[in-house]
């Protein structure tokens, strides 16, 4: 009986899953909301790049399906880093050509916190960055709306082992608008 009680007590009291949490570096945006910066070092953080007619030498043996229906679609998967450079999650970027317009979506999956789903504008800004809107969030991001700015930053450090550059994702979170009663 003691063994049964001890096992039940242990299963009840001790967490079976405890996700590792890195410190979140969040700042307050001047016009309200919170701002958080993520980045992806290219090519070291790239898990997958899938696109038609790609070079398999650069993709760790990943074969993108040759179906004609996927010819205008591509997908990438990355490790996602926080502002300090620690890996905090996994990200996916999907691009497709629909009716002469690019459809670009980002999914940022942070296991200890939740997932962010951004739908990006087809046309980039003059500065080269691209804006996106938070379409859905899970867990701690579920009650939020917000935006993201995506931009490519070329590495200029000149270090021998430096990455080619980084994709920066600057997310801004605000509470969802509620109707006034």
């Amino acid at each position, binding site marked *: 009986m003691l063994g049964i009680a001890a096992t039940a007590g242990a*299963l009840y009291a001790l967490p079976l899953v405890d*996700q590792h949490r890195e410190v979140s570096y969040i700042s307050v945006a001047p016009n309200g909301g919170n701002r958080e910066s993520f980045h992806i070092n290219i090519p070291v953080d790239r898990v*997958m790049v899938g696109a038609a007619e790609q070079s398999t030498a650069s993709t760790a043996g990943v074969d993108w399906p040759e179906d004609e229906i996927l010819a205008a679609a591509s997908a990438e998967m990355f490790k996602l880093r926080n502002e300090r450079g620690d890996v*905090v999650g996994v990200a996916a970027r999907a691009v*497709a050509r629909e009716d002469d317009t690019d459809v670009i979506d980002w999914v940022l999956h942070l296991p200890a916190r939740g997932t962010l789903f951004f739908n990006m504008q087809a046309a980039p800004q003059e500065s080269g960055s691209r*804006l996106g809107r938070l379409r859905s969030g899970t867990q701690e991001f579920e009650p939020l709306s917000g935006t993201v700015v995506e931009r490519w930053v070329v590495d200029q450090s000149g270090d021998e082992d430096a990455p080619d550059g980084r994709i920066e994702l600057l997310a801004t979170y605000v509470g969802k608008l509620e109707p006034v009663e």
Partner: protein
Amino acid sequence: MKYVIALLLGLVTGAFLFAAGLIFNPFSGERALSPLSVTDAQTVTLSYSAAASDAIVFTNDGESSTKPYPEKVLQLWEAPIRQTWALATVMRDARNETAGYGIKLSSLSESTRLLAGQATVNSVWYVYLPGRGGLFIEQTENYWDYIRNIVLPAYRSAADIWKGTWRGNMTSGPGALGTAKVVGSSGEFANMQTDGVESLAVNVWRVDSGPIAADGTLLIELPNQSTLPEEDTLLELD
């Protein structure tokens, strides 16, 4: 000394009895039919192979029974993503033709409670169907039935393999009826908000490589009209 040994043996026996009761508990698991299986609304049915070797990419921490594919793909070994696995795969329609691709990101959930028959996984899908649009699917999955009906019998088998026919709904939330939340991104799915359910059908599972013959299915209900308000304007960023 004999009392200490008797106590230890009693504890171990009790632990085994409790584990056996948990695994063979007839009142736990085996969820009923998904509410979407009886819906009157139109649905989109997408299937994929759940075997890692059939995927475009499958990766995890590299130490789980299911090995990353292709072999050289980057593994998710860092502490915050060690309990996460990622899958990119071809999605097929009801005629078994390529309909698009899907990316699934899954992590073990801290809400796992084996006492309540919940081995929970938080997962999201991004599905893109050329010509139709993109979908984001958020769900919690309960792997308890999968573990006790397939994984544990495979470990108990002398050949380290489970063979049979098992089919189950994996989705357990966040919808009140055990459905996934589906948000449309583009194309005909733009601004759509609806429900979905993921199920698995497994025939062969090996201890050293995970599912060998297994198929997953995503069933997505199509609402009659868009339910998510359009927001054209993006917030100005400083």
